[in-house]
């Protein structure tokens, strides 16, 4: 198990994505939140209560683990109803609610089949149904899309968005950037058990002062490109400039300072800009930079 350290995080309603490569400590962090593991230093609190010792608090948790966790001899309906009964729901009502939920996630026709005969996607749906059956406030989803086909993935994403819209707190881990990016802007980057950054992609950029970033400036008049390049090269926050056919590409290690100086600079030089964008600012690029440790370089 990968340990985690220096993780300080507050979760509120909505989706928070935990991103990191395999072995980053994502599952450990989730187990800490759920009370399945206890921190040796620090604490985890859910509404001020300790999830490791407060068993009643667990009625508010819904958990979809990364791994399979089924009773092989049970059908999906028995499985969901079994856990509903542990939530204090009467047997008949548990059976009815389980059937309705399984129908909602697209397992209506297969709910009386033993789970061991299910495909990977069907198993994932059964896990989701079990996790939400008791209407929890906090949903912890560990690699929820692993092994699912595109249709199942779309369905599960829609369900997650609906739960978030209903005001639930959702903690979702993935090592697939696209999955997290598609669901939320609030991202926690983990690697080697360390929290490298937290926030949306822009906030994360600000947390990385030493990461080299590219900014692309497209002048309205392409003939002004050499003048713009010379001007930018004189600025201390600019590491390098390259002249392209329609734009000027700037390398900077202090994006915030660069963006602050840009408007007065352009006004003074009377250069009109058609567009500014950061080609390397997508989540994939940030992820690679963070996990590669580039932000720690002086």
């Amino acid at each position, binding site marked *: 198990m990968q340990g985690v350290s220096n993780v300080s995080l507050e979760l509120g309603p909505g989706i928070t994505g935990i991103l990191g490569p395999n072995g980053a400590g994502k599952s450990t962090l989730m*187990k800490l939140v*759920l*009370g*399945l*593991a*206890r921190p040796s230093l620090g604490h985890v609190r859910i509404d001020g209560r300790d999830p490791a010792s407060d*068993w*009643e*608090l*667990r*009625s508010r*948790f819904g*958990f979809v*683990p990364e*791994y*399979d*966790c*089924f*009773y*092989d*001899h*049970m059908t999906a309906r028995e499985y969901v*109803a*079994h*856990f509903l*009964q*542990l*939530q*204090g729901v*009467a*047997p008949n009502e548990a059976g009815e609610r389980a059937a309705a939920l399984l129908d909602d996630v697209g397992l209506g026709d297969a709910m009386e089949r033993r789970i061991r005969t299910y495909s990977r996607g069907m198993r994932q749906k059964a896990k989701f149904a*079990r996790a939400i059956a008791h209407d929890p406030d906090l949903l912890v989803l560990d690699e929820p899309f692993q092994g699912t086909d595109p249709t199942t993935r779309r369905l599960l994403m829609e369900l997650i968005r609906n739960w978030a819209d209903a005001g639930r707190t959702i903690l979702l881990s993935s090592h697939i950037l696209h999955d997290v990016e598609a669901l939320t802007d609030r991202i926690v980057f983990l690697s080697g058990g360390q929290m490298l950054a937290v926030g949306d992609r822009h906030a994360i950029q600000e947390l990385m002062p030493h990461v080299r970033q590219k900014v692309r400036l497209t002048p309205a008049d392409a003939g002004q490109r050499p003048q713009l390049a010379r001007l930018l090269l004189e600025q201390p926050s600019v590491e390098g400039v390259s002249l392209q056919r329609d734009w000027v590409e700037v390398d900077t290690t202090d994006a915030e300072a660069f963006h602050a100086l840009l408007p007065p600079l352009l006004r003074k030089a009377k250069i009109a800009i058609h567009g500014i964008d950061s080609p390397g600012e997508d989540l994939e690029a940030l992820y690679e930079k963070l996990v590669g440790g580039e932000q720690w370089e002086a």
Partner: protein
Amino acid sequence: MGSVGEEVARLLQIGRPVFRDGVRQFLLARSTLIVSALLLTPGLLSGWFWYDSRGKVETQVIAGDEVRVFEGEVLHAEMANLFYGLAFELYLPLVVALVALLGAAELLNTEFKQKTMQLLRTSPVRMYEILLPKLLAGTLGTFVAVGTPLTVIYLALLAHGGSFGLREHLPLLGAVLGTLLLASLAYTSIFLLINALVRRPLPVSLVYWLVWELMLGDGDSQRFTVIHYLRSFALPRLKYLDIEADSLNLAVETVTDFSATMTSIATDPWQSVGVLLAVTALAFMLASRLLERKQF
């Protein structure tokens, strides 16, 4: 925490599905079915005896009851002795612990293997609310898996002795089933504790059974074993068959200057029940505590 009544109601509600599923899981497990089928094989002795003694058994009717005699021996007494030997020398010391061991692994270790324990730990239940129905399911499962073949064997063997023997030796069957129930409870709790304690419970359970229970099961040291208290519970119920402490390994040799005599070290039967229940409660509480604190 609610009142005692509320706690009991909650325990029943939470425990019912766990117990029902546990019994089903236990009794339908391949290992249970195989062992139970093997346990029935001594019943074949009855068929062999019937074949071997055909035409040689005399039937006498005494006060409306049939008594059968074979080569001058009253058959029901012979069969009762045979059943006693099977029950107290083979099934109770050896088989019950083995079945309870397999059952406890099926009930608890599979929760770890299938990783459903983590789902239970994220459910709003205390571990004793899960463990108690499992203990009861394991006890019932072991009792049914061993008790059913034993009852069948009793009926098959004693049927040869005639209707008198079937009724006459019901106390023997009662002693066997009573001892079996206590054994099922005590062994299941101990094996559940081992399953909660270690990641690979099978070797540890086997060591406990083979080294502790069987090797310490003779002499003075047997007071530290479950089997001693099981035999002590059964002893007074077997007096009518002239079974003494010595026959049940409940006696130690006392040597004086001129002779050696066997002295009973049997514990009072109700004290034995008390010790077995205390062992069960202790193992149960320790296992619950361990599961509650287990980290994943």
